């Protein structure tokens, strides 16, 4: 079925290719996780699929399998005349820096990283702000005053999540205790639900009753463990509340799908602009998810406190420290 859609899309592109110069030939280079990673790459994919369904414009795609292929894939896309090209993930920045110089007439968008070139749009998110909000929610939902964090691979980006979360928890409850665990030090940490579940259970054993997972596919195990133990879990990246209604307290949403969708959409409209887009709470690039799946878990007081924090952050009254500004979590 999907193949047929793609074929139909291709046919449409070919048929209309000669019709107008406004037509675009978009492309995307996914990173090593692959487009079905249930997380970051898949968020992009969902945004692009939405675009394709709306406009009928097909896009070229490639999933890299090693470090060197990033540059190769970006260059091949540009050589084939694709425009705009989305580079998914911070790891593609060095490759994009080279390729974007070679093809100054091609428009590139990189997500999660800044590449400062005239033909590159950089979309980054203030994950620490979103994590702050779910930290507030976690602290208020916790009865024991102890909350947990399960990270994926131990890299600065994930520490950024953890640091924002920690600040939010302590903002709501200065006496709270926070347990932090990283799943691993290799990329397999992104997809190890068994280990995620174990880490979550050990945190529950130590008294935690809310745990926030920023760990890609590993999070699935964390959420399951929370459900099995009757504790609460917080999802990440996309709204994962629906996974286990009743034990998913909320999700820290990072709207990479919107960013990806907008890239193609603005390119089609002719409103695509290079430069840096920092998407934080104010831009709705990050946020917390409240829907029918978790409405019962979120008390009015909690909701008020989280919304208050949100407003204060946007207004600048609360400054959330960004781990990656100085690679420490001292605030």
């Amino acid at each position, binding site marked *: 079925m999907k193949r047929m859609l793609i074929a139909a899309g291709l046919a449409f592109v070919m048929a209309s290719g000669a019709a107008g110069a406004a037509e675009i030939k978009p492309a995307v280079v996914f990173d090593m996780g692959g487009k079905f990673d249930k997380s970051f790459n898949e968020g992009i994919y969902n945004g692009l699929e939405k675009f394709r369904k709306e406009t009928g414009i097909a896009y070229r795609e490639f999933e890299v*399998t*090693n*470090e*060197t292929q990033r540059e190769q894939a970006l260059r091949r896309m540009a050589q084939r005349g694709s425009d705009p090209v989305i580079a998914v993930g911070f790891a593609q920045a060095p490759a994009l820096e080279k390729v974007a110089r070679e093809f100054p007439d091609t428009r590139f968008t990189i997500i999660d990283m800044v590449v400062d070139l005239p033909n590159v749009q950089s979309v980054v998110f203030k994950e620490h702000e979103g994590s702050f909000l779910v930290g507030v929610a976690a602290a208020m939902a916790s009865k024991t005053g102890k909350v947990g964090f399960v990270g994926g691979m131990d*890299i600065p980006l994930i520490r950024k999540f953890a640091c924002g979360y920690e600040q939010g928890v302590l903002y709501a409850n200065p006496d709270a205790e926070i347990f932090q665990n990283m799943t691993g030090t*290799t990329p397999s940490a992104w997809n190890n639900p068994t280990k995620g579940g174990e880490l979550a259970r050990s945190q529950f054993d130590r008294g935690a009753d809310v745990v926030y997972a920023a760990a890609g596919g590993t999070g699935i195990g964390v959420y399951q463990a929370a459900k099995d133990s009757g504790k609460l879990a917080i999802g990440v990246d996309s709204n994962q509340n629906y996974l286990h209604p009743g034990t998913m307290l909320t999700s820290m949403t990072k709207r990479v799908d919107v960013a990806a969708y907008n890239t193609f959409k603005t390119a089609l409209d002719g409103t695509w602009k290079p430069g840096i887009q920092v998407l934080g709470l104010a831009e709705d690039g990050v946020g917390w998810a409240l829907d029918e799946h978790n409405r019962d878990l979120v008390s009015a007081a909690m909701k008020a406190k989280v919304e208050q924090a949100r407003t204060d952050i946007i207004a600048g009254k609360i400054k959330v420290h960004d781990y990656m500004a100085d690679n420490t979590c001292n605030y």
Partner: protein
Amino acid sequence: MNEGPARPPRWVGMVLIPLVNLTLALAIAGLIILSIGENPLTALRFLLFGAFGYIEGLGYTLYYTTNFVFTGLAVAVAFRAKLFNIGGEGQAYIGGLGVGLVALAFDDTLPLVLMVPLAIAAAAAFGAAWAYIPAYLQARRGSHIVITTIMFNFIAAALMVYLLVNVLIKPGQMSPESREFAPSAWLPFMHEALGWFGIAMARSPLNLSFLWALVCCVLVWAFIWHTRWGYEIRTVGGNEAAAVYAGIRPTRVIILAMCVSGALAGFVGVNEILGVHHRLLLNFTAGYGFTGIAVALMGRNHPVGILLASLLFGALYQGGAELAFEIPAITRDLVVVIQGLVILFSGALEYMFRPQLERLFTRRGAALPVEG
């Protein structure tokens, strides 16, 4: 028996059997491609064209080949001493660390002509050191080399993550990567090097370490077959009791073979770090160390065979990427399946057709000799 086992001509083992295995692997891959509704011949064309059909593709193919030559030779040297070095991945990783540290320390001060030998030495030293520990444990403590080298792959990965996340990372940067080296420390790309002679070549990651890989083939050949140390390695691998009888200490030979093996694997770091990425980063080894096992197996642990097998795997990697690029229905996972089939048939199933084929080329049946 006065006669040895009747043996088929050498080309059967060296050329025909790998070819049959390869053909079968591709045939099965073709069936899979057919089953998802694509034309296998088209796919094969894309694969071949992607690997050899244009200069940039060829550059990528040879760039992968470079890595496989290093890791394949590494596995082969250890295998000559009957040691199964599964740790090429970790040794390559740590070898790259050595290259990176040297480049980070001296990229501003040293000219390229000094930087390159120093980086090569560092890759060798770091890779050898990483292989030394499992070798020592095997030689002195009897800890099985397969287990320890696998474990050292994990330790290497963990160490690199620690170093890059906490120590070597360029502050304020998202990716766990070091700063970029000064361009004066970059090993020239092949297209640059050829440019000096006025030959234009498309950009590709192929760099001068390819030449070093070729040199290593010759060096390994000479070392294994034309030095007394190579002789001792082969003696221990061929018959350990005979080695002890000859006054060769297997413990020393095991350590020597593993250190040479680790050094060779470490050269992947020269290609990747000094030649391509120009910064220290995570996961640049991308499984080349493991593929090296298949390369060595297919190449009969001989430098010439390894060079050819490396070229094959280089072509599969590059052609495979091209395939995934050109035919969206063939995902990268399917490309891995195709590569896996080749490894399966040339490695694990190596002996599936060997008896039949050998019999075919041996007059009136072959059998083992029995003392009479």
